[in-house]
């Protein structure tokens, strides 16, 4: 008996595990169901410049972009004791009882991440994800909703339940935006081109500026 029988399923699982590991390592604290969806979405939005992330299919929901795959993988990870439910709180949603669930990485999960990081390709992926989660943590996990809503590809999709073409490089407007940021910055900084970190910071700064105006809000 085994967990998956296809490599791409394992790679998606790697992705979620790296995100949960990063939230643990930079002490972001437990991450909610929908927050996890949005963090994974924003990492995918900027992924084509690094080409390390696999595809999830997103649809526009009334609470932002949502992918069934992500939740399925999270469920499998919990059953196989690689992730854990930190808390499950009931709450009232328009007269209906619902559960608010937060997730974290388990000890077994941390062991798997450690083992994966021994391979250079996986290590690079993991570090890239860690970098983005770190930038998100600078704004605070609570602002993830606003940052995602300011993301241009999501903004362009008008209808609910419609697929968001974030994985199609030509239709991914964040990639266009980052190319633009790169172009205008190249004239000002000599080594900007080689430094992806600066480009990422510029990108998130732009999203924040769009969502909140003047002050960049970085703590």
């Amino acid at each position, binding site marked *: *008996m*085994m*967990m*998956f*029988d*296809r*490599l791409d399923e*394992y790679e998606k*699982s*790697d992705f979620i595990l790296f995100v949960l590991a990063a939230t643990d390592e930079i002490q972001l604290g437990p991450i909610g169901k929908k927050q996890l969806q949005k963090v994974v979405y924003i990492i995918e939005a900027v992924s084509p410049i690094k080409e390390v992330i696999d595809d999830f299919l997103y649809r526009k929901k009334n609470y932002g972009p949502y992918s069934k795959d992500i939740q399925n993988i999270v469920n499998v990870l919990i*059953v*196989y*004791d*690689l992730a854990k439910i930190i808390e499950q709180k009931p709450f009232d949603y328009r007269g209906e009882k619902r559960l608010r669930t937060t997730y974290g990485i388990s000890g*077994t999960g941390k062991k*798997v991440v450690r*083992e*994966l990081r021994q*391979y*250079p*390709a996986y290590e690079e992926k993991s570090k890239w994800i860690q970098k983005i989660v770190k930038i998100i943590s600078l704004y605070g996990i609570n602002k993830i909703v606003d940052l995602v809503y300011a993301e241009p590809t999501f903004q362009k999709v008008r209808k609910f339940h419609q697929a968001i073409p974030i994985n199609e490089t030509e239709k991914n407007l964040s990639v266009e935006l980052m190319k633009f940021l790169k172009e205008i910055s190249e004239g000002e900084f000599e080594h900007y081109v080689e430094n992806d970190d600066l480009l990422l910071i510029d990108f998130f700064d732009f999203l924040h500026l769009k969502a909140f105006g003047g002050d960049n809000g970085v703590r």
Partner: protein
Amino acid sequence: MKKIILPKLNRVGVADYDLYREDISFTIHEGVNIIIGGNGLGKTTFLNLIIFGMTGKEQVKPRLTSKYFMDRVENKRDLFPKVTVEFSIGDTDFLVRRDIRTGDIDILEINDKGVVAEADELEAIYNKNVIECSNFGSFNNFCFILKSLLYAGEDRKLILWDLKTQTEVLGLLFVGKDHIENYFGLLKKARDANTQWRHAVDDNGKLEDELKEIEIKRENILEREPIVFETKNKIRDIENEIRKIRENLDIIEDSLKEKREIMEKRAVEIDKISEDLENLDEKLKVSELVVHQRIYPERSPIYEEAKYQLENYGICIFCRSRSDEARNMATERESNKRCIVCGSPLKISQEAPESSYSKTLGEIDELSKSRQILEKRREELRFEIEDIRRAITSAKSEEEGLRREEGILKLRREELRSRKEFLENEPARITEYDLMIYNYINLIEYRKEIIAQHREAWERAGEEFEMEVERMRRELRAIMDNFGRKFQDYASKFLGKSCELEQRGKRMKTLEFELPIFYPKLDEKTRDLETSVSETQRLFLDHAYRFAIISLIFESTQYPVLYFAETPEAFSDVAYIKNIAEMFSDFCREGHTVIITSNLSSKTFLSEVLKDYGMNERKNRVLNLLELGKLTEVQEKERTSFDILLKEILGGES
């Protein structure tokens, strides 16, 4: 100038015409002839019958028709009325008998010889003979003169103040068709001669131009030797340049060929690398799957615990219930290698030995390294291809430039070659040109003589034409002067004092000279309107004018003429009666025939005009319609007084 001959009437016969009680045969005598009758007895009809007999159905106004004559009679069915006129034009005697009802000629005799033909043909023969004898251009002209000049009717239509009729009459009588033909013939001759002379001059001008061109060409050939030498040098230089360009082109072509070959090789290499990379990726995927299966846990701890609890104790770990049925199902599913919860077949991993796993890790490492090397190489090759492609493009544009340059040089070489060829052949033509120049000079000289001849002919024709114009002018002037004198004679006789004709020129449309028109001049005053003289003066000045014209014609032909005057005494002032009678008698003395109609209103006038004739002769000169016509009751009552009056007139001096 033109010899127009006017008709003279000899006899008139009317038969079977119901207006008159008897057939009439009236012989016309030289001098005065009088038709006497009351109103409505057929005096005017008698004159019209004469004219109808002579002119027939022609269209000149006032038109006479059969209907006009037939409307005047009561018995139209049983009778076949005829009118016979015997007249002469010059030496030719005509006898024409017309059917009054149809207007057709039924008897035609010319010089006492009967003409036998159909009615239409008779008319044509008659017209033709009249035209020939009278010298009029057409039968219409003859009719026009008869009706306008020779017939002074009761309508008192004047020609003296009627400029149109006057010009037409004078034109017809004094400027004939043959004169005009002669005039235009000479004019055309002069113009043609002028055209020929001008063309000859132009032709010679062209010849002189051509000669100049040939002379210039000849001069040029002599100056061309150094140019030929220079052109040869230029051609040699161009050929050298072309050779150099060809060499360069060959080099470029070789290099292009080489570059293309390299590029093809590199492309093949890239394809090979891409293929290898794909294979590597496939292998990597397999190895990575193995690695994942190794790293990730094989079983879910929860599933294992649930299975254990259910199989051993029959307890569900999620709801803590006990169920043997569930335990049996779980045991059965487990033994069949199915999921104890949902019964689906379990995915079984192939246990890989530790040694093979280590081998996989080594493989991944190796594969990744190979992959990096291949990718680097592929990138290098792509850059190289890009460089070659740029080099090819620049070589191509250089090649194109050289080819263009070569094309231009080749064209220039061709141009110079043909020029050289032309120049080399030129000297041979000098002899040819010399001969041509000689011929041209001779031809021009010869043609100069022809020009002189043409010029002479032109001048001669011009002179001839001018002489003819002058002659016509002179003749006309002489005629008109004579005409003026004649009018003066007649008019003065009637007025008892001098009356001249004033001439004014009227230019005819097509001729070079003017035709005169006339106005009477009385008491030093030109009477250019008919209202500027009294009614009697107007009427008899018009008669005088007509008499003058007829006299003039008579002077040139010596043939007396027929003249109709309807009731001339009717409007005459008693004081002028004698003068008028004297004017008529004067006119008759030339031998003309005058037919006067009268209703016996002026005994004096008739007595005066008949005074030259003896008593017997007078009777023959009178046609008494009081006897022949059908009198009204009033006229019948007055018959006696008419007879007394007539007797007095015919009795005359006796």
